């Protein structure tokens, strides 16, 4: 029997494919296209302790093989999320991973505490959003700050925590080790790369926020490299993402050392993308005679 199951910090996923935070809402809109039970896990849009209105529009711009976004983490806050989104996701045979954002360490701790008694499998701590002025990336660009926030969040969290790393750093391994020292249970990367687009006819910024996070296939080689370096540097399981559109892309990340992968921007180009990646991995395994997906993790070189 072929095995597609992977384990992340003690949580077993039926397959290694999940959704990238912010591209899939809380799953409701995509569940109109397919049964979310096809996925290993659904990762929700970032949620804070209180509702956040997000940034002014335009919030997105298309770029070659990718896009820039500066949504600014618009979210309804933890109360509505617990009342509405968790029960909805519970209807599906998939794991629930809640992406958590905040402006202060206290904000993050408040959210993970509220989630302690909820039927949530893992928490993904977003310390890497480039689109909000306070919090977010401030914690994700200094190894010291990252280690400290990881320690604090870990103290308050009941579920295992995944620290989501930013690629906007000089040395990703330094950040990965800091999160590991702080007690993270897993790492996910990459969040978006900070970018900018200018409308040359209007001579203005394409995004109201001026800068935005670059995602999509354009960033994939950078992401694969960072996942590889991270997997080499730490013992923690790594969740790889950045431009995954097909099963082939996903396998590349797994070979680089990812135990699981997330599909993000590709959901916009094809609402079935994440499901197709999961199916395609099985097809690849059959074709290549791979019995156990775990044999592929880090199997490059």
């Amino acid at each position, binding site marked *: 029997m072929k095995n597609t199951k992977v384990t992340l910090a003690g949580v077993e996923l039926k397959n290694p494919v999940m959704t990238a935070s912010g591209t899939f*809402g809380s799953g409701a809109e995509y569940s109109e*296209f397919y049964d979310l039970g096809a996925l290993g896990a659904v990762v929700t849009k970032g949620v804070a302790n209180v509702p956040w209105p997000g940034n002014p*529009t335009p919030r*997105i711009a298309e770029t070659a093989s990718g896009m820039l976004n500066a949504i600014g983490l618009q979210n309804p*806050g933890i109360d509505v999320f617990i009342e509405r989104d968790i029960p909805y996701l519970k209807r599906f045979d998939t794991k629930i991973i809640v992406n958590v954002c905040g402006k202060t360490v206290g904000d993050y701790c408040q959210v993970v505490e509220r989630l302690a008694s909820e039927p949530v499998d893992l928490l993904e701590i977003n310390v890497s959003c480039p689109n909000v002025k306070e919090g977010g990336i401030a914690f994700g660009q200094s190894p010291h700050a990252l280690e400290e926030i990881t320690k604090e969040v870990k103290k308050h969290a009941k579920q295992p925590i995944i620290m989501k790393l930013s690629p906007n750093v000089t040395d990703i391994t330094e950040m990965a080790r800091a999160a590991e020292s702080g007690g993270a249970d897993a790492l996910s990367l990459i969040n978006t790369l900070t970018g900018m687009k200018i409308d040359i006819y209007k001579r203005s910024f394409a995004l109201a926020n001026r800068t935005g996070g670059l995602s999509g296939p354009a960033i994939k080689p950078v992401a694969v490299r960072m996942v590889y370096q991270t997997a080499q540097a730490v013992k923690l399981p790594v969740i790889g993402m950045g431009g995954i559109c097909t099963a082939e892309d996903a396998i590349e990340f797994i070979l680089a050392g990812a135990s699981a992968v997330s599909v993000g*921007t590709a959901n*916009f*180009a094809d*609402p079935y993308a994440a499901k197709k990646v999961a199916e395609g991995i099985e097809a690849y395994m059959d074709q290549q005679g791979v019995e156990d997906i775990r044999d592929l993790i880090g199997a490059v070189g």
Partner: protein
Amino acid sequence: MKSREYAKVIRQEKIAPDVYSLWIEAPQIAAEAKAGQFLSLYSADKSRMLPRPISICEIDPDRGYIRLVYRVVGAGTEEFSGLCEGGRIQVLGPLGNGFPLKEGKAFLIGGGIGIPPMVQTAKELSAIEDRSSIQIIAGYRSEQFLAEELKHYGELYIATEDGCAGTKGTVLDAIREHALEADVIYACGPKPMLRAVKAYAGEKGIECWISMEERMACGIGACLACTCQSTEVDNHTHVKNKRVCKDGPVFLSTEVEL
């Protein structure tokens, strides 16, 4: 379950400089769609990842056809303009809410590439209202398109910026020139036009429905790219930001900030 489908191209023609009329076969969409809704059109070139939102111009439910009228403004619409009979294109829809059609004397106001959805709106209104109640005001920069179709369903009044046809000026200038009156307004067009129409409706106390435009990524309500500011808290995030793709694109003019 919703589904994205390959639609067959029935025919395409250029109806004005840079403006194309595309008939596609999409039976499921044609069966469900109504005036004011839109489709997401996907590029065959995978380096363009985001779908292009295009309003439904006309529906032929019997044949399962949908008509889209769009202006070439960039690489995506340029690609679509090359589609020929027998070709195919991936589409998703119908998306968004559409115009809630009401009885009474109506203004159907379209500006530029906001005119196409008024064809189906007029067509649907003609089933519940007399021709004289369907007052269509179309504002063009210069070159006109879809005027024949619009005349077929209602009374057409034209405004052009350069005065080459109809009233020289804006859609509101045309309304004033002809001393037109209405109980309800449906409008789609550039933001300055929508602002002016909203102000006019406010002064006259007329119920006014406007179709909004914003950059989209998912097109289905998941990514929060396409929000517009609303006067009341939205029921998704509870922060006064409504999603144009899901909560709209049609809003009551008093419901949104312009």
